[in-house]
Every structure is written in structure tokens, then in C-alpha cells.
């Protein structure tokens, strides 16, 4: 009963905060500058690690599929198809979202939490600035803009990783892999993954901002807020992954 009450309280506070976030910006030029800064903080700084993860995941998916489907009844090109579809449908949106919940989510929560406990947010409020909108809106917009882009980059890099592993190990002939990559391609899968990544971007940036912005106390609470941001963002990403898959692919 208490847990239910707490959940409803948190949900209510989260919705109220979003109301403040999506109010009219004071000075658009300043918000634009903040947006560019957040693009760098949230997106561009994650590019390197996303490339590395995607490259290796693409390779591993390809090799595992190849070694586990050594049946004469299964055509070799299915390995290329498996690599392509697993990257598009699941890995590049969901796995990258979970990774971003850890990296960008904890970063957002700890940044806002530190601003809260060092009275920087109070300083903005005193000046008559809507601190929620000024600090959180650029983070959400930057995430909505960059997450789908990261997903596309991850898909391309992952497939390249798969192809590279085939070339290096020779586990299947390269033409078979290439044929599989092109076989029965459904363009809606890309739309599906981009919808997912956009919604995950909103979930991660808004939930992490909520936990950071509402911190009360000191450094210990900032750490706790950061952990909560990652945990609740990840749970919601997984939950919405199921819901969106059912809604979009059924």
C-alpha cells in the first residue's frame, strides 16, 4: 500500500515537473546555446563508445549465429540476415538505450543533483528563470535529436562488425553474408527502431532529470539519485520495449 502511494506520488511529481519543463522558453537564443552544449555532453561524447560496442556486438552476434547454426538444412545467408535484423530490431535501439541510461542518465542526474545541493538551481529561480525548463528542456531535446542518430550509426557499425568478422575468420563465404544482409529486408524495421529510440531518449533524459532535479540533502543523496536514475530509466526502457514491440510489430 505504502509502495503504491509512493509510486503515485513520484508519478505525480514527475508529471508536474514535465509541465514546468515544457512551458514557453524565456529567451530562445540562450536555450539554443544550451541545446548545442547538451548535444555535445549527451550525444557526441558517447559516439566513440557506441561505435566500439556496436562493432564488437555485430561481430559476436555473427560468429555466435554461425557457430550455432551449422546445419546443412539452414542456408548460410541466414547468418547475414540474423546479424542485420538483430542489430536493427533490438541491439541498436534497446541495448544502446540501456548503455545510454548508464552513461548519459547518471551524468544528467548527478549534474542536476549537484546544481541543486550547491544552490545553483535556487540562484536561477531567484533571477526569475524557470530552472526546470532552462536546465531540462535542452537535455530532452538533445536526447530526442541524438538517440535516433546514435541508433543509425550503431546499426551501420554493427553490420560492418559482422561483415568484418566474416572476412577475418572466414566462418561463411562473404558473398553469402552479403546476400543475407539484403535478403527480405523490411524497411518498417528501421522505422520501428527509430520510434523506439526516440521514446527511450525521452524516458532516459526525463527520468534522470527528475531524479537529479528533485535531490534533497548532500553528496550522498546525489549518488543515490544517480543510481535511481539509471535503475528506473533501464526498467522503463525494458518495459516500453515490450509494449512498443507488441504495438508496432503485432
Amino acid at each position, binding site marked *: 500500500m505504502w509502495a503504491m502511494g509512493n509510486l503515485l506520488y513520484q508519478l505525480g511529481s514527475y508529471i508536474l515537473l514535465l509541465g514546468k519543463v515544457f512551458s514557453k522558453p524565456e*529567451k530562445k537564443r540562450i536555450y539554443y546555446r544550451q541545446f548545442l552544449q547538451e548535444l555535445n555532453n549527451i550525444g557526441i561524447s558517447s559516439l566513440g563508445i557506441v561505435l566500439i560496442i556496436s562493432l564488437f556486438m555485430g561481430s559476436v552476434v555473427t560468429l555466435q549465429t554461425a557457430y550455432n547454426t551449422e546445419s546443412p538444412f539452414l542456408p548460410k545467408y541466414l547468418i547475414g540476415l540474423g546479424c542485420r535484423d538483430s542489430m536493427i530490431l533490438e541491439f541498436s535501439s534497446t541495448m544502446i538505450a540501456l548503455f545510454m541510461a548508464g552513461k548519459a542518465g547518471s551524468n544528467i542526474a548527478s549534474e542536476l543533483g549537484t546544481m541543486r545541493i550547491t544552490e*545553483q538551481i535556487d540562484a536561477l529561480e*531567484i533571477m*526569475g528563470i524557470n530552472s526546470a525548463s532552462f536546465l531540462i528542456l535542452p537535455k530532452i531535446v538533445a536526447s530526442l535529436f541524438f538517440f535516433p542518430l546514435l541508433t543509425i550509426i550503431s546499426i551501420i557499425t554493427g553490420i560492418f562488425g559482422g561483415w568484418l568478422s566474416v572476412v577475418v575468420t572466414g566462418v561463411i563465404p562473404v558473398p553469402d553474408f552479403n546476400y543475407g544482409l539484403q535478403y527480405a529486408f523490411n524497411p518498417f524495421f528501421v522505422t520501428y527502431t527509430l520510434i523506439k529510440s526516440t521514446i527511450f531518449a525521452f524516458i532516459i533524459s526525463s527520468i534522470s532529470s527528475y531524479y537529479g532535479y528533485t535531490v534533497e540533502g548532500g553528496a550522498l543523496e546525489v549518488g543515490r539519485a544517480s543510481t535511481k536514475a539509471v535503475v528506473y530509466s533501464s526498467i522503463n526502457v525494458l518495459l516500453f520495449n515490450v509494449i512498443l514491440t507488441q504495438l508496432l510489430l503485432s
Partner: protein
Amino acid sequence: MIRVEHLTKVFDDKVVLEDITCTFEKGKTNLIIGQSGSGKTVLLKSIVGLIEPTEGDVYYGDVNFTRLSFTEKKDIRKKIGMLFQGAALFDSATVEENVMFPLHMFTDMSDEEKRERANFCLKRVNVVNANHLYPAEISGGMKKRVALARAIVLNPDYLFCDEPNSGLDPQTSILIDQLIKEITEEFQTVTIVNTHDMNSVMGIGEKILFIHEGRKVWEGNNKEILSSDNEILNKFVFANQMAMELKKARGNK
């Protein structure tokens, strides 16, 4: 002038402020003093609107600030400058950018004009050659001075200082006090300073409000404070050795 009328603040079941009524005058340094946990900061934050009072009103001039909506409060907030206990400078911005921030948000000045105004304010608080440093690269005293420069950059009508001397050495504390007093006279602001530093009380306390356990116990100035016969106030004031010696010296005269 700022007028506080019957202000009460209750957190859960705990009464932190009880029926505070007082006025803070223009061109004077008004001090709120009291022990740690007496409710000073809650009173200051209630006056500036960071905390919603449970009961009572705060008037800025004739305007009842407490009853205004968030948007309506904006107009008054633009006239407020505040120096926070920990300075509250934006970590990701340089000294100059911190001071220029209110100008970016609320004026249509050109970049050159903004820079000129920021440099004037930084010079006013004796901060030179630090424009491109980040808050993490400057000392505590300098942070307070930069925060003061940011607080006065828009020519405020109201200046609030929460524990401006906390964590500073006595020499820097005196410097900050002097700056606050000079700025108050120069800009004719209503200045409210929250402190428990007796040096500040004796140095700049033109009007003093003593809070004890959430209640107003005494009101006066730095000339009257040493001769008060209020027991609770005396206990607070004479816990400080320097004030004790001052009292003795006055007694000997």
C-alpha cells in the same frame, strides 16, 4: 522597503518560524541574526520566495509578493540579487560568463556592452584578471565576490546575502561586509543579510532582527545590541569573546 507580516512556516509538524513581523529598510544593511537552526535561512528563503510560507505575507513595497503567481513574481525577481552561502556560481561557466548570465537572460545589450557591464561589476568587487577562470579555480573569498558581482549586475533594488562570511577568514569577511555596506549605500538597495558572525553584526548591523527558535526575540541596531537586557540575546551575543570585551570596555567608560 520589504515588510513581513505574521509569517509562519511549518514543516510537517515542526514550527520553524512563528508569527514573524518586521520591516527591512532601503539603503540600510538589515541583518537577521540567530543561532544555527533558529530559522534565519528559512525566513530569508521565505522572503525571496524559494519557500512558500504556511501563513503570513511578504510585501515588496506595496506588492504582496506571497500572493503573486510564478509569472507575476518574475517582475520582482528581476529586481532581486542574491549572494548564496556557497556562492552558487555556475560550475560550467567562467567568472565573466557567470556575471554576464543575468544580462544574457534579461537585457538586449550587445555582447560588448554586457562584457563592459560585467567587468565594471567585477572591478567594483575587486576581482581582476580572473575573467576566464572557472569557479573551481578561484578561492572561496573570490567566489563570494564574483557572486556579489553577479547579484548587482542588473542594478537590483533588493539584495539578499545568506551567510556571506561562512568559511572565510576574518580579513576576507571584513572585506565582504564592507562591500555589502558600500553597495547598499551606492545602489540604495534594501539589503538583508543572514549571519551569526558578531563581527558583521558590530560592523554593518544598521538594523538587526534576532531570531530564536523561530520567533522574533529582539529588534534594534549595532549600537543598542550590547546594552540590551534581553537574556536570550545576551547569551548569543556574549558567547563571542570580542563582544564581551567590547561590553567590558564600554562598562569601564
